[in-house]
Each structure stands twice: as structure tokens, then as C-alpha cells.
């Protein structure tokens, strides 16, 4: 994109009308019959199809544009045009695989779902996984091998390797992102054998190194903790946002929700304590939350340990230790709680905290007898033997010393993400040759001798382990769109100088796994997407000799006195992580779960701190311009970024997210947000104390999707404490007086008209959303966006309040904003009312009710009066103020690439029409038709066959969908629960979507 760095999908309206030839695609992906793509497409063929379909603009017969149909020449077997196919595969992220199933239409991957068979994903996904489909179709991905910035070919690269690495005495440094692939491990060993002076460093800007080190210091081995939140009664999170930042967040959220399930008032939900500085997603789901600075977490942990040491054995090393926290009310309460729940409680700490914290946490979990019960410590074969943060540090030192001859960088982007004090850029200059494999021609590629464009996981073969050690294969579903190579092929070329296909290399590895009857095992793995019952061994752990001494040193090092200066905390962005997803429009436009900000990162501060700095502590309604503050660390590094007041944030602390502010990487990533990595140093990876903050004296526009964050005491979200719930199980229904229902005697309020009779042979669709399970992660929004061809509209339009998401997650604060407000998350899709207010006001009957109870929106009938949206009490309708889809689908050099991502079963909406959640009617129709064909006489699909995109993706299993006329369907059971209530029921619009009230489980002693 170098030639047009400024250009962005959403900004240039003038771009809009130009691409006439793509008119058709703007209306819907591309001709249904253009089925050429199946067995993986070469771009040449693909463009032919486009070329053909493009023809229709020009040639016109007397009647209408001529449309071409291009059938296959050789049709692959098992493929029936018009019927999607599903392949099991896995998504790698920070070296851990997530099991997924990939839906393809005529060979185009269009949707990613979790793999039901996978013990971790259990069919569920997170936002990044859902969005990775868009990454595949990102036109800005690097398209060819480059040598010193100029285009080159893969063959030349292989030739170069052959020649360059024929001298095996070179001091080669392999710098790889975290990776669990056995195949890669094999190649790694080859490499280290072949090049005696080689070294291998794993570099992840955000990693678990200090977790491993901490555990090592007490258990003697670098082990990976695996938490079982579903078995815990009491969970204490020390600044650990395990619902967002953990590599395993999908199953953690699921397990946590499981532990909170309320089937009846008698159930015992678990209790979550969180002590943190930022108001994290995990914190927002806590029963009790303590706002403390991140720098105070270690002393807090030690104090807790020493308190516990007085009650239970195994923590003698801490006995007698005192600091300011010892008489903190929380310490006492937590100690009691944990002691009362030995063996079924969990203590966790944020991965970036010092080893000392993790050592303490490990010791506590062991002492409480949680180890082996709720916490398992896994022996991970591919973990590096030493602390890689240090390894990276020494590598850079050597590079500066000029002792590194060649550096091979696999996937990482250190120029952007490496700690600023190391000044990796300079160091890299002292290296003779740099080879870099990456998706984008990014910051690091630009300064490398060789850049190899990387193939995405949907494009090539690979393998690896999940967090808990489930071994899977990465199965491609399409040939590399830009002819890229993945890390296996790349590394193989480097080491052996040969051009081996990843397929061969991976199979070779797996032959050792299945020595006999390989093919059938292999096919089974491909079919299931994983090797059954593969799992890491659980280590049995004990405090090793000398651990006590180490702990003592930790305690002595820890600063007992707290500074009251302002401190800075750097965290990975909930959406973009370290910036690797920065060019992903879906993630950029997904509102941050807590701040609801899109397209930007901000400095999160508490109201009190805001006043201290001079920023208004409360936002004026409708104000998009925010004060910019200048942050200067004591090491002199500084940056300017907009301040954002987040109630509940710790005082005298600022949280910054990384991953924004990338330059010339892609049209989405560029010019969004501020790059905060320059503030991060190797010594202070997480916290920097005593920073200087001042007003920059300018303002900056922020696109936030929720202007008002107080409930105004409206009974929209209903919640109760466990005790209240037990005293009054139907509190949710009784909270609002519904005129005419005579205290539940009548199902619905009185109405002027008699109830409509809908045909009995039709299913009646309905949905429930369990607010007690929902954690507010927002994956439903992305899943819906992927399923329903929802365009990305860009910051300017979002700022104007025109976001297009069909399901949004409302976030409300309640309680004292200055202190520690509670947070409620509420996903809001279309409610599909039986008495829908939107229907009666449409002058052309474009929105009406279907026989199966959907509030249906006929886009092509809509004339766009927006009256329906005005009259919708839930404000779930979305209007195409501009020709968003067309801009989205026809911008850039090769718009047809993004067009491939579209779901052919969903109409693409034109400018000036209203749109909204359809309950995924395309899935419903498919299911009804299939049922009719199977049964011959019924159109009522079996319960559970129709899953909406949001329901399918939800890691917490909060959404149920099905036939409410069937009394035994899951959704009916949910609706029959006493927590079930309808939002704004008093309006008698009779929504089909209802909510289950949230139950909090507070400790009454606090």
C-alpha cells in the first residue's frame, strides 16, 4: 500500500460511484454460479471469473446486462454448488492452537466456528478467531517476496538460502514468535544441529515468561498453569484479565460461566474477587473488585500469603512478613474465604507481573491444595528452557556487539513491538543479513534484507498444541491468495535450502506420531481437527528446596512503601493485542468491551485522576472531542494521547493499550490511535511509576458507540444478589408493574386487538440471553458481522453514531462512579416483537412479521423513511446512510478479494435501506428446507439444529435460540425459568427475545 498510504475504505466518498463495473457485487457478493474457486484458487483463475462478471457492466442486450456463468471445467467431487462445506482446522495464536471448523462456499472460506469436538473451544470462539477470516481477505497483506524492499521471487530466496547458509559456521539467530508446532520444533532442532553457532529465541511482546519463571522458582520446573474455573468456588484474580488477555480465554470464559450457572435459586454460583488497576472485562464480572495500582499487586500478594501462612501450612516462607496491606480488610476476608475453600479455589495473577507474584500465587495454590484440583501444572515439551525475555535481551546486546551474522525472524515484528530501551532497530543494523517472514510488509520487513510474505493459517498446512496440549493439524481450505509461505516452509528453506511443501513436512512429523496405519489416523485427525485424548502431562508439584530462600529474596526486594505518584500500565489491546490485528476492520470497529471506544486507543484514567490532571471528570453528552494528555516516563520517553475517564479505574494510574499507531502497514491500521510501545522498556514491561502527566492543550475526536453509561434507574437490566434472589425468586418479573396482566394472571398486557394466530405448522422462533452468563466480551458482534455481511464503516461514521452492528453489547455503570461502580453487560439484538412498533409505521410494509414469528426486513422494499428505527424502543435498527457496503466492497486495488469474504446467503444492503438482526434467517431457511426434504411433511427443525451466529460463537453459552412453540426446546426451558424477563415488557410489544436476570454473589462481610 506504499503508493497510497492515506487511502482508506471509509473516508473517500468520491471513490463511491466510480467502480461501476463492480455495481453488481455491491448488491451481493458475486455471481452465485461462479463456482470456479473450489479446490483452492490461483489468483489468475479468480480474476478470470471477476473479469467475466465484470463484463456485465459493458455489454448490454436489449433487455438487461448480460450475465456470464462460469461452470467448473473439472468439478471437484463431494462439491455441490450452493451447499457450503465444513473443514476442521485450527487457529494459531501466540503458539497455541484453537480448534475451529471453517465454512466454505464454493471454495471461499466465509465463516469460522469453534470445533465442537475440541475440549477447549467446545465449539466456541473469541473475537480474534472470528475476525481472522477477514485477515485472510486483507488486500494489504504482503503479496510477494522482497529483497531489500524490491520485489523478488520465492525461488530466488530459496537459492539465496542455499548459497548463504552453505557456510554453517555463521552465527545465526532465529527469532521466532511463540509456536507449538512439532514440525517447527523438528526443524528447529535440525537448525541448531546444522549451525553450531546458532541460537533460537522466542519473542512475544506479551508472554507468560514470568509465569513460568515464577513457577520455576518454587516448583523447580517451567510449568504451565491450567485453571479449571468450572470447579472453583472462590476465585481471586490479581490484575489478571483471564477473560481477555489469557491465551485460553475461550474455555476460561466458558468454565467461569459454567461455575456461575443458575438453574434454580438453590444453585451455588462461584464467587470472583478481582484486585486490579484497569477496569478490565474480568473485573467487570467480579462480585467484589478492589481498585489498586498494579504496582501494589506484589505487596498485596505477599500480604495475602503471609496472612494465609498463619492459617495453613506450606507458606512458612511468608510468615511474619508485613507490609501496608496486612491490615487491609480484603486480606482478612480473602484469607478466610480461601481457607474455607481449600482445593476448590483459584488464585491467579496477571501474566506480565513479576516472577515473585507468580511464585507466590503458585505457592498459595499449592498450599491451598488447589494444585491438581482447580489448577493443573502442565509439562509443555515445546517451552523454552530459559526465560526468553532475558534471552531476547542478551540477543540484542550481541547484535549491538556485531557478533550476529544473520538473523532469521519468523512472524514477529520486533521493530514495532520490542521494548523501546533495547532499540532493536539500531541493533538490527549491526546484523549482516536479516530474513523476515510476515503477513504484512511491516516495520521490520522494511529494514530486512529479505522479506517473505507469509501464508495465513487458512492457506497452508501446519500443526501444534492447544493451551492444554490437544494436538491438532492446521488444514488449509484455500490456496494462498498471494502465494505466501508459512513458517514451516520458510524455515525449511532457510535450513535445507529446499522448497518443501508444508503438507509434506507436517505429514512427515505426524508419521512419528502414528507409526502404523498412518493414513487412517491422519484422515481421522483431519476429520476431527485434533488427535483424540492428546494432552500435556500434569506435573505433580511441590515446593523444591531453596524455594524458601528465593521467596525471601523476593520479599526483601519488594518495596514496602507505596509511592503516591501517577503510574503507567501498558497492556495488550483487547482487540488488536500487540498490533498484529491492527489491519482488521472488524476488530478496529468492535467497541472496546469496557470503554466502548472504536478505532482508537486512549489513556484510561479514573475520575479522581482526571481532576488531578485537569481533565473534566465527566463527559458532556454528545461530546466527541477529548482532552489530549502528554505522558512522560521517568526515562524521558513521552507520548501524547487522548484521555478517557473510565469509572472504576484505579486512582493515580493510567492504562494504555498497545497495538495502535502503526504506519504504512495497511489502509485500516494506518493513522488509527497512538503507538504506545515506545513507552515500554525491558525493565518495566508492565508498570512505570512516577510518570509525569500534563495537558497537551489540544483535543482529539474519539468514536465511542455509547454516549451515556448510566442506567438512569430504569429496569432494563435486572439483577439481584444471591440472597435477594433466594428470598424472591421471581424478582425479575415483578420488578415492573405490567398494566393489565393482573400480577401474571394474564400472559400479556391487555390489548385492543385479539392476539394474532400464527400457523401451527410453522416453528415459532425465540431467543433468550442469560445476563448471568454473559461476560460482555463482544464476540457475538463480530460473529454476526461475519455471518451477515455487515460492512465496516470507519471511524468518522461511527463517531456520528451510525455504527451498523446488528447485535451490540450495552455496558452500564451503576453505583458510585467516583469509587467502584458495578458494571452490567447486555447484548442487544433485534427483539423480534410480536407487536413490533416498527412494522405499523412503515408506509410500504417493508418490515412485517413472518409466519414463524420473525420481524422480517425486506431490504428491497425499503424506501428508507427511518420511521421504523425512530419507533423502535430498543433502537436496534441500522440505516445505510451512505452506500457503506459498496464502499466496503469496491475500494482498493482488488476489491474482489474482500468480496470473497461475503456470505452468499445474505443480501448485501444498498444505500438508503434499513437493516437489522434477522435471527440469522438464512440459517433458519436452510434448516427448514432441509427438514422438509428429510421428513417430507414438517418444517420444524429439530431443537438445536438452528444456531444463530451470535449463539454459536458465545464462549459463555449465554444465548439460546429455538422454537418457543415447542415446550421442550432449550429456549423454552430457559424462558420458563424464574429469572426470565422481557425488556420494556410494559410497552406490550411482546419481544421474542427475553433476558435472564443477573445474579451476583457478594460476600456479605465486605
Amino acid at each position, binding site marked *: 500500500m506504499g503508493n497510497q498510504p492515506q487511502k482508506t475504505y471509509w473516508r473517500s466518498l468520491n471513490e463511491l460511484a466510480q467502480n461501476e463495473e463492480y455495481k453488481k457485487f455491491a448488491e451481493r457478493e458475486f455471481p452465485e454460479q461462479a463456482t470456479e474457486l473450489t479446490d483452492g484458487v490461483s489468483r489468475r483463475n479468480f480474476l478470470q471469473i471477476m473479469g467475466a462478471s465484470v463484463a456485465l457492466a459493458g455489454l448490454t442486450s436489449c433487455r438487461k446486462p448480460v450475465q456470464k456463468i462460469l461452470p467448473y471445467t473439472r468439478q471437484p467431487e463431494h462439491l455441490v454448488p450452493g451447499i457450503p462445506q465444513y473443514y476442521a482446522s485450527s487457529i494459531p495464536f501466540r503458539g497455541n492452537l484453537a480448534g475451529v471448523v471453517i465454512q466454505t462456499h464454493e471454495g471461499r472460506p466465509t465463516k469460522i466456528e469453534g470445533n465442537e469436538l475440541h475440549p477447549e473451544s467446545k465449539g466456541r470462539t473469541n473475537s480474534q478467531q472470528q475476525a481472522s477470516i477477514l485477515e485472510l481477505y486483507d488486500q494489504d497483506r504482503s503479496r510477494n517476496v522482497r529483497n531489500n524492499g524490491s520485489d523478488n521471487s520465492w525461488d530466488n530466496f530459496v537459492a539465496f538460502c542455499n548459497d548463504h547458509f552453505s557456510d554453517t559456521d555463521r552465527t545465526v539467530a532465529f527469532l521466532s514468535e511463540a509456536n507449538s508446532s512439532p514440525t517447527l520444533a523438528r526443524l528447529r532442532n535440525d537448525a541448531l544441529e546444522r549451525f553450531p553457532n546458532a541460537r533460537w529465541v522466542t519473542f512475544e511482546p506479551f508472554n507468560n515468561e514470568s509465569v513460568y519463571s515464577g513457577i520455576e522458582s518454587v516448583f523447580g520446573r517451567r510449568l504451565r498453569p491450567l485453571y479449571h474455573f468450572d470447579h472453583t468456588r472462590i476465585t481471586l484474580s490479581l490484575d489478571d484479565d483471564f477473560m481477555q488477555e489469557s491465551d485460553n480465554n475461550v474455555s476460561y470464559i466458558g468454565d467461569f460461566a459454567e461455575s456461575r450457572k443458575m438453574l434454580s435459586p438453590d444453585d451455588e454460583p462461584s464467587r470472583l474477587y478481582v484486585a486490579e488497576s484497569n477496569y478490565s472485562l474480568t473485573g467487570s464480572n467480579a462480585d467484589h473488585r478492589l481498585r489498586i495500582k498494579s504496582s501494589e499487586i506484589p505487596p498485596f500478594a505477599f500480604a495475602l500469603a503471609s496472612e494465609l501462612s498463619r492459617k495453613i501450612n506450606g507458606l512458612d516462607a511468608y510468615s511474619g512478613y508485613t507490609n501496608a496491606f496486612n491490615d487491609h480488610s480484603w486480606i482478612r476476608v480473602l484469607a478466610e474465604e480461601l481457607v474455607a475453600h481449600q482445593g476448590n479455589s483459584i488464585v491467579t495473577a496477571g501474566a506480565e507481573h513479576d516472577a515473585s507474584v507468580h511464585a507466590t500465587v503458585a505457592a498459595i495454590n499449592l498450599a491451598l491444595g488447589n494444585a491438581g484440583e482447580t489448577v493443573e501444572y502442565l509439562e509443555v515439551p515445546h517451552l523454552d528452557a530459559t526465560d526468553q525475555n532475558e534471552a531476547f535481551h542478551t540477543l540484542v546486546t550481541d547484535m549491538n556487539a556485531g557478533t550476529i551474522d544473520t538473523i532469521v525472524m519468523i512472524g514477529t515484528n520486533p521493530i514495532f513491538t520490542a521494548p523501546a530501551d533495547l532499540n532493536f532497530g539500531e541493533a538490527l543494523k549491526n546484523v549482516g543479513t536479516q530474513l523476515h517472514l510476515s503477513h504484512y510488509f511491516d516495520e521490520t520487513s522494511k529494514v530486512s534484507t529479505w522479506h517473505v510474505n507469509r501464508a495465513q493459517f487458512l492457506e497452508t498446512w501446519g500443526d501444534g498444541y492447544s493451551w492444554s496440549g490437544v494436538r491438532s493439524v492446521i488444514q488449509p481450505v484455500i490456496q494462498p491468495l498471494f502465494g505466501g509461505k508459512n513458517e514451516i516452509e520458510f524455515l525449511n528453506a532457510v535450513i535445507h535450502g529446499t522448497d518443501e511443501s508444508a503438507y509434506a513436512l507436517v505429514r512427515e512429523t505426524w508419521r512419528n506420531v502414528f507409526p502404523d496405519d498412518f493414513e487412517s489416523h491422519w484422515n481421522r485427525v483431519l476429520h476431527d481437527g485434533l488427535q483424540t485424548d492428546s494432552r500435556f502431562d500434569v506435573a505433580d508439584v511441590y515446593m523444591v528446596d531453596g524455594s524458601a530462600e528465593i521467596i525471601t529474596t523476593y520479599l526483601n526486594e519488594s518495596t514496602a512503601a507505596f509511592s503516591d505518584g501517577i503510574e503507567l500500565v501498558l497492556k495488550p489491546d483487547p482487540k488488536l493485542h500487540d498490533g498484529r490485528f491492527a489491519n482488521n476492520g472488524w476488530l478496529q470497529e468492535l467497541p472496546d468491551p469496557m470503554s466502548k471506544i472504536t478505532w482508537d486507543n486512549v489513556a484510561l484514567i479514573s475520575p479522581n485522576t482526571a481532576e488531578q490532571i485537569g481533565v473534566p471528570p465527566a463527559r458532556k453528552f454528545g461530546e466527541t472531542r477529548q482532552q489530549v494528555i502528554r505522558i512522560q516516563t521517568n526515562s524521558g520517553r513521552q507520548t501524547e494521547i487522548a484521555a478517557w475517564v473510565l469509572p472504576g479505574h484505579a486512582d493515580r494510574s493510567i492504562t494504555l493499550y498497545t497495538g495502535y499507531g502503526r504506519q504504512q502497514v495497511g489502509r485500516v491500521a494506518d493513522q488509527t490511535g497512538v503507538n504506545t510501545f515506545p513507552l515500554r522498556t525491558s525493565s518495566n514491561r508492565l508498570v512505570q511509576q512516577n510518570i509525569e502527566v500534563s495537558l497537551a492543550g489540544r483535543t482529539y475526536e474519539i468514536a465511542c458507540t455509547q454516549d451515556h453509561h448510566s442506567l438512569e434507574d430504569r429496569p*432494563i437490566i435486572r439483577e439481584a444478589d444471591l440472597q435477594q434472589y433466594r428470598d424472591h425468586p421471581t424478582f425479575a418479573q415483578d420488578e415492573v408493574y405490567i398494566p393489565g396482566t393482573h400480577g401474571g394472571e394474564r400472559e400479556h398486557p391487555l390489548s385492543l386487538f385479539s392476539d394474532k394466530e400464527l400457523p401451527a405448522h410453522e416453528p415459532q422462533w425465540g431467543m433468550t440471553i442469560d445476563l448471568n452468563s454473559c461476560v460482555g466480551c463482544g464476540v457475538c458482534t463480530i460473529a454476526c458481522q461475519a455471518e451477515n455481511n455487515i460492512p465496516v464503516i470507519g471511524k468518522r461514521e461511527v463517531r456520528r453514531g451510525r455504527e451498523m452492528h446488528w447485535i451490540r453489547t450495552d455496558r452500564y455503570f451503576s453505583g458510585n462512579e467516583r469509587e467502584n461502580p458495578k458494571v452490567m453487560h447486555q447484548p442487544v439484538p433485534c427483539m423480534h416483537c410480536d407487536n413490533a412498533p416498527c412494522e405499523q409505521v412503515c*408506509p410500504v410494509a417493508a418490515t412485517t412479521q413472518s409466519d414463524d414469528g420473525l420481524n422480517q426486513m425486506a431490504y428491497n*422494499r425499503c424506501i428508507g423513511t427511518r420511521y421504523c428505527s425512530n419507533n423502535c*424502543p430498543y433502537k436496534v435498527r441500522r440505516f445505510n446512510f451512505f452506500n457503506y457496503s459498496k464502499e466496503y466492497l469496491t475500494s482498493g486495488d482488488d476489491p474482489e478479494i474482500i468480496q470473497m469474504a461475503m456470505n452468499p446467503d445474505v443480501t448485501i444492503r444498498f444505500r438508503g435501506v434499513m437493516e437489522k438482526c434477522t435471527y440469522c434467517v438464512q440459517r433458519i431457511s436452510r434448516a427448514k428446507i432441509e427438514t422438509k426434504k428429510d421428513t417430507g411433511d414438517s418444517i420444524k427443525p429439530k431443537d438445536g439444529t438452528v444456531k444463530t451466529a451470535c449463539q454459536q460463537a458465545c464462549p459463555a453459552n449465554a444465548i439460546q435460540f429455538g422454537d418457543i412453540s415447542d415446550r421442550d426446546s432449550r429456549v423454552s426451558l430457559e424462558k420458563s425459568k424464574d429469572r426470565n424477563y422481557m425488556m420494556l415488557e410494559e*410497552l406490550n410489544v411482546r419481544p421474542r427475545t427475553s433476558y435472564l436476570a443477573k445474579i451476583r454473589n457478594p460476600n456479605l462481610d465486605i
Partner: protein
Amino acid sequence: MSQNIPMVPDNQLVKGNHDFASLTKLISEIPQERTPLWWYIAFGISNLVLAIMLAMIAWLFWNGIGVWGLQQPVGWGWDITNFVWWVGIGHAGTLISAILFLFRQGWRTAINRFAEAMTVFAVMCAGIFPAIHVGRIWTIYWIFPLPNSMQLWPNFNSPLLWDVFAVFTYLTVSALFWYMGLVPDLATMRDRVKGRVSKMIYGTFAMGWTGSNRNWQHYEKAYMILAGLATPLVLSVHSIVSFDFAVSMIPGWHTTIFPPYFVAGAIFSGFAMVLSLMIISRKLYKLEDIMTLDHIEKMNTIILVTGNMVGFAYAMEFFIAWYSGVEYEKFVFINRAFGPYSWAYWIMITCNVVSPQFFWIKKFRRNIALTFILSIVINIGMWFERFVITVTSLAQDYLPSSWGYFSPTYVDVLTYVGTFGLFFTCFLLFLRFLPMVAISEIKGVLPQADPAYYRAQNGNTKSNK
């Protein structure tokens, strides 16, 4: 024959010693004399502004509704505000010609022509907005019940559709009414103007009117019937416009008081507009004898009455909000007065409720300068009333998560300003080419028009020739 007619007493509708001929002269001269310079200037400006409006609409069609400031949740902003405002203004004319006619208010004859013209043009301006506010203008014909290959029909449950029918009917009937009133006067023009072409044009539109009594009979009947039809119509139109809001379920919209409240508001703003225009043109065209201070006073009285009705409605909204006990209702109205849009609310109160109170005092009612200023102020106020109702209710409705602050773009503003271009272009053409007072009607209210008048003079009219 006028000399021995006694001085016209004060309570007469037409001041000055006018007889039939002088009235004919006074009014029918205007279109014949040379076009004054001010007219050319005014007309030029109006055309310019009209051009701006057309440009803005073209821009809107090219890019989409997004060029306006609308968003979630505010799907209607200036577009509907302007629509309701213009329709409101369009109420004075028909009201004056129809209702005052039925009530035998002779004084209406001085201003009805002019008010009717204003009505027609105002409703034209109003009609623009519902038309262009739709997202896909090229499909707008779908709101009409036309047979089509989709076998689809409009939704007669929708207030917006009622609106279409109501406003269309209103425009048509007002135009017919206006034209019918014009016919005898066009005949007068036909018989006055020199120049063959203008004779032919006026002649064509006069349709060969002779003033035959057999025609007058049907004419008067038709006039009476049209008045009878227009009266319920004029009351229904703004009621139906108010249904756009009242039938919905948004707090601040869903209000049963709307129909009478809107009609009162419409008359309020309509009369104000008539006054503004009348005060200017009676000066420019020296029609003080016909459009007298009495007229201004009478109209000010009506403004006072309707103004207070509107004020009462405002108060009643608050009372009901409180009395209903619906928290959403309560919030909306408190929020109007003290929320982010309070500025608009207080402008509205000042202009619509406070300012008319001057007219309790006769001296002010007969003060032309004050009347003129207030008539403008009132129309500003009425615009803000519509803005307050439309926007503030939407901006903060049921779910706080979906609240949003609306602010207009330059396109919003210029489109609105542009409609004045259309309005004044039409109005200036009317002043220039048509008799702006109903000649035949005003003759009809002269004392000389009544045969009894001559008998009173014991038939001495014969002798004095």
C-alpha cells in the same frame, strides 16, 4: 356617483372613500404598472436561494441521507421539523378563506387571497421534505397504491401514508379554492389589461367569466361547499401530521393532546406568517385602506388566543407526564427543559408563550412595528417547537445506551434556507401578476353592494345623474 355618499363610518371594513371603480383601479393597477426595482432585486435573491436548495437536494440524492446530521437514534431531524413547520404555516390561508367565510367574517376578504396564495406555496415547500427525506428517492412512488408486478401495496396502518394522502389532498384543495376565487378577478384583469398577449393569458384563465348572475349562483354555491369541505380538511391535516408522532411509541411523541395542539400551533404560525407578509406588502402597494389596522388587530387577537392554546398544551404535556407516572415520559419532559436541548426548549417557550402576551394590550395589537417583529419571532418559536418535539424525544428515549446527540450539517441548514427561495419566488410572482386582494369579494362587502343601501337613500340615486 361617490360624492354624496356619506363618509364611511369607522367600523367599515374598507377605509377611505372607495367605490367599486376605485377599488378595481387600486388593485388591478398593481399588475399593470411597471415592475418596481425592489421586485427585481427581491426576485433575484429568491432565485439564488432557490438554486442553493436545488443544489443541496442534488447533493443529497448523489450521496445519500448521510450528508445530513442524522444518526442512531435520531432518524428524523431538520427534514421533518421543516415539513411540519411549513405545513403549519400553510394553515392560515385555508382557515381564513374557509372557516372565516363560514362564520361570515367580512373582514377576511381583504386578506384571504393573499393568505391562500401563501398557503399553496407553503405547502409546496412542506411537500419537498417528506419526499427527499427517504433513503431511496427513486422508489418513493411505492407509497402510492399503484398496481405492480410485485403485487405489493402500501401499508395503510402507517401514519406516514396518511400524511401523504392528507397533505396531497390539502395542497390540491387549497389550490382549487384559490384558483376558483381568482376567476372573477382574472376576468376583471382581462378587461383591464392592455396588450393582446396579457389579455389572452388572463382571458384564458378567466375562462370567459362574464359576471352573469346565473354563474354567480353556482359559483357561490361551489365556494360555500369548498369552504365547507376545506374546514374539516384544514383541521384534519395537521391532526394527521401530528399522528406521525402521536401514533408512535416514543416518549414525547406518544401524546393524545397532539392533534388540537398541532392545529392551534399551525394557525398560530400561519397567522404570524400572513402578518409578516401583509405588513410588508400593504406598505409597498399602498393597500392600507384595504388591509387596515383593524385587520391587524383582529389577527393579533387570534394569535394571542392560539398562542395561549399552545402554551396550555405545553403545560398539559408536563402535567400528563407527571400524572401518568411513566418514568420514561417524566424523564423526557424534564429533560426537554433541563437536558442537553434545553436551549431549544426555552427559545420555544419565549417565542411562543411569552411573546404573544403583548397582545393583551390593544395598543400593542395595533402597533405595526411590534406586530411585525413578533410575527417573525413567533415563526422562529414554532420552528423550535417542531425541533424540540422531533429531535429531543428521539435523542434520549428508552435505552440510555442508545442515546445520541444530533447536530445538523451545512446541508441540513442550507436545504431549509433554500425552501424560502422557493416560497418567495412563488410569492413574488403572485404579487406581480395576480390581484392580491379578492376584488369581487371586497366589493361585495362595501355598503354600496347591498341594494337596501340605495333604498335607504329613498331612491335619490336616479336623480343625481
